[in-house]
């Protein structure tokens, strides 16, 4: 019997040993993976190792981003930094493909957080609330304070008086249109009012339907994505906040939104929208536009880069200011995703080293080249002054002009029931009582807003004097 137990114990020890070996093998495999999530999963051990060996070896920093369009340039910058910095800091880049926010959540909850993170307007407030970010106020030099002073915005990069990130670029939004198709339909210029947009879409469809050409399209597979790249811009240029929030009253009011929706509904009714747009994703839409099948759509300043690299096209296209409700420009076009770029992890053991890397990335030369290569449109005034325009076809229509500006942040709330985008898209497809839908949205969004304010998650300060032509009050 003793022999049996001895055998059993030996077997268990062997099994544990094999499992242990397997685990090590896996880990070494992961740490060898470059620029993938597996690489990210080993962030903490090496960061800690960096901390432990700081006296003898280099400080190892992990930088995570979900930007893919600029990764070659960022790699170059990091290589240069690793070779030239005199503080013995080594940065390792990890480019996430999908689910960036979830990966960051998992990394922080398992103590494997990166030292430097790419921040965007969509995730910064969440990251601050979750305690992921370290304030950078104490590191800022006087020069940097001057350089970025006009762009330090509450609830964008500054929360409760503390600064967590600095801006680099932003995205402008424009009407993207096919000049050849417009000419073929006898239209001289891009529409300046929504009624003109509806009429133009109808003319284009009538002229091109037999060849499969339609006047308008959007990526309605995700209605919120579609509306946030179109109606948002139409409204801000028309003098209203583009996500349904009234900055003057500090309450949600979807009445202006519902006015724009009526024109979109009309285009559906007219049959001017590309068939199948209800389940169209943005890339298939771009592929169809590149193939000359769509007259116009609304989107971000990422489009010139997309048509240069992702969907190279011979069509004659351009970007123009979005149309407004009545053809009059009463506000400014909102530059979105501006105000944030890099942030430092609150859990990093090397925050000073992380700041040195961040300081390098925010240098004039880096920001200038970033703009000139067309990775984003510079919003930092001193960079805008010295940078040359990017040499990318179509980009001239997206450059920041007199009608572009940054708007105050919209409070983030999660209402019960359907979102404004889903509710209005349903109205476009199936009809209903627009007034009742608008009132229902106002009720549910303001209830969610009150709840968020009560919980201390959101602060709202009504600004009765808000001027949409000068959103920053300058």
């Amino acid at each position, binding site marked *: 019997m003793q022999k049996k137990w001895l055998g059993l114990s030996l077997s268990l020890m062997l099994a544990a040993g094999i499992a242990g070996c397997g685990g090590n093998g896996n880990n070494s495999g992961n740490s060898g993976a470059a620029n993938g999530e597996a690489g990210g999963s080993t962030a903490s051990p090496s960061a800690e190792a960096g901390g432990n060996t700081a006296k003898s070896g280099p400080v190892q920093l992990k930088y995570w981003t979900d930007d893919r369009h600029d990764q070659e340039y960022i790699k170059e910058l990091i290589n240069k930094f690793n070779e030239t910095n005199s503080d013995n800091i080594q940065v390792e880049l990890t480019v996430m493909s999908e689910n960036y926010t979830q990966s960051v959540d998992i990394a922080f909850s398992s103590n494997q957080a990166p030292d430097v993170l790419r921040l965007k307007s969509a995730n910064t407030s969440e990251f601050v609330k979750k305690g992921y970010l370290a304030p950078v106020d104490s590191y800022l030099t006087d020069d940097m304070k001057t350089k970025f002073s006009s762009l330090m915005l509450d609830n964008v990069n500054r929360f409760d008086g503390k600064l967590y990130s600095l801006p680099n670029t932003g995205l402008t939004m424009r009407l993207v249109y096919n000049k050849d198709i417009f000419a073929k339909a006898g239209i001289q210029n891009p529409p300046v009012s929504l009624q003109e947009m509806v009429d133009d879409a109808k003319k284009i469809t009538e002229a091109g339907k037999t060849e499969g050409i339609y006047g308008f399209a959007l990526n309605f597979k995700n209605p919120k994505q579609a509306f946030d790249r179109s109606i948002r811009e139409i409204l801000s240029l028309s003098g209203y906040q583009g*996500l349904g929030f009234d900055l003057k009253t500090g309450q949600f009011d979807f009445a202006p939104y519902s006015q724009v929706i009526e024109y979109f509904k009309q285009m559906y009714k007219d049959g001017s929208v590309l068939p199948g747009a209800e389940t169209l994703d943005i890339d298939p839409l771009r592929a169809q536009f590149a193939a000359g099948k769509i007259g116009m759509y609304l989107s971000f300043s990422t489009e010139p880069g997309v048509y240069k690299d992702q969907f190279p096209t011979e069509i004659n296209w351009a970007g123009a200011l979005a149309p407004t409700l009545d053809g009059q420009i009463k506000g400014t076009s909102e530059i979105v995703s501006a105000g944030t770029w890099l942030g430092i992890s609150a859990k990093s053991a090397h925050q000073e080293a992380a700041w040195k890397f961040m300081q390098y990335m925010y240098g004039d030369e880096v920001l200038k080249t970033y703009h000139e290569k067309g990775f984003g449109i510079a919003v930092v005034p001193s960079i805008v002054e010295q940078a040359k325009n990017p040499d990318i076809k179509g980009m001239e229509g997206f450059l920041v002009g007199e009608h572009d500006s940054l708007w105050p942040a919209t409070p983030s709330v999660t209402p019960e029931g359907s979102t404004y985008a889903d509710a209005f898209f349903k109205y476009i497809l*199936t009809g209903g009582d627009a007034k009742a839908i608008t009132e229902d949205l106002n009720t549910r969004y303001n209830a969610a807003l009150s709840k968020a304010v009560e919980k201390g998650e959101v602060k709202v300060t009504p600004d009765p004097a808000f001027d949409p032509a000068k959103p920053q009050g300058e």
Partner: protein
Amino acid sequence: MSFKWKRLGENSLFLIPSIILTVALGIYPLFWMLRYMFYDYAGYGDALFVGLDNFRRLMRDGLFWESVGNTFIFAGGKLLLTLPLSLLLAVMLNGRLRGGNLLRGIYFMPTVISTAVISVVFYNIFNSYNGMVNTVLMKLHLVSQPVDWLGPKHAMLTVILVAVWGAVGNYMLLFLAGLQSIPQDLYESAAIDGANAGRRFWNITLPMLAPVAQMVIMLAIIASLKGYESIMVITEGGPIGKTEVMYLYLYKLLFPVSTGSPVAQQLGYGSAVGFASAVIVGAITGLYFFLSRKMNKVY
């Protein structure tokens, strides 16, 4: 007696790893969810105890109940097409068919391919502006205009067809295993008695297959009620919620997709929805088991 106990002790040691994994990854999350369905919790910060508020919200949440309705349509459609088709294929392949093994492999292949991959392929096949289905239909002059296969009218039918394509091979294999356990003597005796193929199928195959069929149908019901992966890729639950099924709705609450503005996770309410969804699946499975209890005794 003492020998048996010792033996039991030795054997139990081998169960420890799987017990630890089951508790850590299966049972602990369940209790975690059962706790948070009484809280307002976004995954960070303090969880606020709200009692039964999440369930009150659930009762008035039209989107959830619409998704339950869609789930029944999706599961019903999928089962009605998948089960007879897989049984038919299994019966055909159970005979001495030339190349039978190859055909089994071909029919089973969709089960092995990643759902995400096949869903992307089917999105391209069914899209209305340049999809293959419409191109073929128009070239054959069967339709004059592209059919909006992924539009509000036909999207549910399309996702059901994709789900059937992915599931038939799996159930065919299970039916095939059941068919091969039926003794050949019965068929030979019936043939001697003059029973034709149809009669042999109704009077021998179906009754003998009943216990296996009961289990296969139960698995199919559960899988159909819980299925959402291909729908997520093909339509994301749209257009206008026409293909939003229960578990896709749940997924979106727990893992919201950020699209330019922050969207909070609703772990508390999501837990309540998850619990309700599990109760619905459990109740239907239980009801099926009750109604089909005689199948287990038929042979």
